[in-house]
């Protein structure tokens, strides 16, 4: 899974800490998601999409070739 969280954070002028606070997660989680080290739950992904006012697939892109970080 690839994502554009960094891009959307820049558009909305949000730091990792601020986004983490809005989502109710730790900054470590935002860092891990941005680096494609952790795939967020659907719940968290929807919350992100709602914060940025876009559809979930505009932030997250499924890539069959990308290694699953949970493996």
């Amino acid at each position, binding site marked *: 899974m690839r994502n554009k969280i960094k891009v959307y954070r820049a558009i909305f002028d949000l730091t990792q800490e601020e986004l*983490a*606070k809005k989502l*109710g*997660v*730790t900054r*470590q*989680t935002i860092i*891990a998601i941005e680096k494609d080290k*952790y795939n*967020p*739950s659907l*719940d*968290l992904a929807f919350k992100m999409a709602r914060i940025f006012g876009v559809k979930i697939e505009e932030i997250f892109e499924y890539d069959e070739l990308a290694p699953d970080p*949970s493996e």
Partner: protein
Amino acid sequence: MPMDAKTSRICRMVIIVGTVAIAGWFAVMAEAALVLASAAVGAVLYHLCRSRIKEVVADERDERVSERAAKVAVEAFAAASALVGVLLIAARNEHPELINAGFALAFSACALMILYSALYGYYNRRYGFEPCDEE
């Protein structure tokens, strides 16, 4: 009184060290009731301290990490204790003093796997498992 994550961490460390020291002292004095009482007081203080944290300290990623770590720990402990337990039982002719330790290890591995299976079944049903109807 609300606490930040760092203060809470220090507070919890002090509680753990204090509880272990006090419970250990009572264990040396052979006071089983006082060991239980001190452990209970320690657990209450620990949870009080944890509930005072204002900021997010654990989220779904931490939960995933804990799940993975717990699974690997259970598998490693079960395999290692079963193997060492059976080896100690098998070596009873050379080292008869170790047979009780062997049985304790082997039974703990069995108990752990039984507990794991029971909890697996419980959570499997809780998260929507239903037997498939074959037609």
